[in-house]
């Protein structure tokens, strides 16, 4: 291809579409299951399967620590992993804005390939549409995934029980903080990088310690604070969060301090919140600390029968307050 950007012709279904698919997507996603047919034909997994889908519209498409391609694979891989499902297959649909640079598309596809390979998931089908200039913001990606649930896994947001320990698999809020800085609306410079990572290996390591894992949730949009409220609501339990034990990178603390934001509500793309019986907490954290993406894992709270649906914060001065309910748009405060 000679053109340096994606054009409407690339989405018209003709020669140029085939060229685009061949040179960018097939080149990166090549595997025996990714054929030119209308649907991928796949061997039947042995056990229960989990299926999930997610759309990704992050702006800018590239940020410190990843890009929208890596994010699109991690997002669906992590959703499957939260159900104890080993990710097997992904589909990927692209909506690309006319004029989007081809080398950027190449970079995105390469990141998807690398991330998928790390987890052992295969991209088996895809779709490409080109939208006119201004009809979308650069590139949108949807991924859908199928995974095979470990026979011993039985997790759900409704399964948290009084007495459970709440574990975070690492320092929180780095992805949200990275995107805020990358958007450059706030004139703040920081080398903070996204926590975006595929977490199947992390989940697998939990089940090496015990099968008795009640809830696994990835703390994406809305961050850990939002996840805690979701689980408190779904499981009809209270959660006590210990403020001092929540791991936060000093750079994230610094940016949040300047903007008046709370890291508890900033998105993560490579962090899980796990609910499991207290007796396994120590062993789970010890195992997590060995992992590539969970070296800073920590117990951050406990589940209680009282205060159902609420999250209580134990503060650094020894008092207890309600953790504020998550709000919509994050708006930095004045001073």
């Amino acid at each position, binding site marked *: 291809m000679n053109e340096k950007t994606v054009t409407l012709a690339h989405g018209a279904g003709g020669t140029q579409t085939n060229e685009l698919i061949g040179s960018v997507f097939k080149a990166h996603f090549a595997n025996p299951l990714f054929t030119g047919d209308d649907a991928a034909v796949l061997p039947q997994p042995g056990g229960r399967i989990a299926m999930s889908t997610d759309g990704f519209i992050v702006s800018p498409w590239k940020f410190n620590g990843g890009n929208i391609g890596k994010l699109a694979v991690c997002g669906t891989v992590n959703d499957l992993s939260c159900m104890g499902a080993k990710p097997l297959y992904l589909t990927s649909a692209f909506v690309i804005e006319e004029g989007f640079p081809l080398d950027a598309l190449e970079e995105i596809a390469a990141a998807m390939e690398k991330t998928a390979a790390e987890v052992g998931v295969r991209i088996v089908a895809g779709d490409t549409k080109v939208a006119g200039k201004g009809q979308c913001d650069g590139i949108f990606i949807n991924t859908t995934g199928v995974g095979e649930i470990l026979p011993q896994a039985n997790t759900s947001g409704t399964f948290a029980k009084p007495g459970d320990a709440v574990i975070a698999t690492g320092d929180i809020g780095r992805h949200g903080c990275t995107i805020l800085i990358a958007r450059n*609306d*706030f*004139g*703040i410079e920081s080398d903070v990088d996204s926590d975006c990572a595929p977490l199947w290996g992390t989940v697998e390591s939990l089940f090496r310690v015990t099968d008795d894992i009640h809830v696994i949730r990835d703390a994406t949009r809305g961050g850990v604070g939002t996840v805690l409220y979701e689980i408190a609501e779904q499981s009809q339990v209270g959660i006590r969060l210990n403020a001092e034990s929540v791991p936060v990178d000093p750079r994230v603390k610094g940016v949040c301090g*300047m*903007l*008046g934001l709370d890291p508890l509500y900033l998105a993560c793309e490579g962090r899980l919140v796990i609910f499991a019986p207290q007796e396994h907490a120590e062993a789970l954290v010890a195992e997590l600390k060995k992992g590539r993406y969970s070296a800073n894992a920590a117990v951050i709270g406990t589940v209680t029968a009282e205060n159902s649906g609420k999250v209580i*914060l134990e*503060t*650094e*001065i*020894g*008092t*207890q*307050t*309600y953790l*504020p*309910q998550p*709000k*919509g748009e*994050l*708006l*930095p*405060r*004045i*001073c």
Partner: protein
Amino acid sequence: MNNSMRAARDIITSYSGKPLRIMEVCGTHTHEIFRLGLRKLLPEQIDLISGPGCPVCVTSVGYIDEACRLALQNGCVICTFGDLIRVPGTEMSLAGARAEGAEVKPVYSPLDAVELAAKNPEKQVVFLAVGFETTTPSACLAVKQAKEAGLQNFSLLTANKTMPNAYQALVGSADAFLYPGHVNAITGNAVCRELCEKQSVSGVVAGFTASELLTALAVTIRLLEKGEPFFRNCYPRVVKDEGNPAALQIMQDVMEPCDSEWRGLGLIPQSGMKLREEYADYDARMKYHLPVITGKPNPACRCGEVLQGKCKPSDCKVFGKVCTPLHPVGACMVSDEGACSAYYQYT
């Protein structure tokens, strides 16, 4: 908790003297005090009152109306500190204006708004200059930069406020003030010392960490027990007696004092800042010939009394019912620093 924090905490929790009213003037203090659940440590004789130090909360309804008009009728791009976006005006908030097609951008610094104007010469950019001595110097710097760069598409809608005359309006509403550390870092301590020496108004400058707040409160309690008027700087790592001369100079170069309307406190003479004559081209009110707009706050809202410590948020009829952080009726419910918002979220 370290030993010094524990010692300060013990002083606070073991107080058993006469009733005390202590006012935290600064919105960031209000937020931190709620976040830490600090009121729960207080014995019942100590009443901690939230003062009018949240810049969003004291911004008048009419100001929001002016900003919405500039956005919708004059087609200006409105750049603003984020939490102003949801403050209700008479008809709508800036979020409402945005939903009707206005361009409203949250920025961290007024200099970002200047940059936006420089990059988009076809757009008229207006920065909403609100806040106290902490934010005013950067707004002045922005105007100075815009003038030096010859930008003709940048202006300020000013509602900047200064603290000294507000303290005058608050004299008598508390036994001691926790002074806003960030403001004193700019202004220095002369005004607070003078209040102590000439009018027997007591207070301490407080920092913002758990340890700094506990210390400031413990010092205040101990000194109130002695009964003599006092001033102490409990935030010396940041606040110097002389303040920040460079910031004070640029404020003086670019702006001059004016009367200012505070939500809840009314018009306080010489408690605001406006652009000097030589910067009139950068004054949005003059540039767009804005008429005098008097906003109409929702009559059910008691933000004004909350701001003066005359009533608690929960005494207001709309609090927690029609007025919530997601659907604020009054300004105090908007910012995380607002007393109503903090009260709603943490208690």
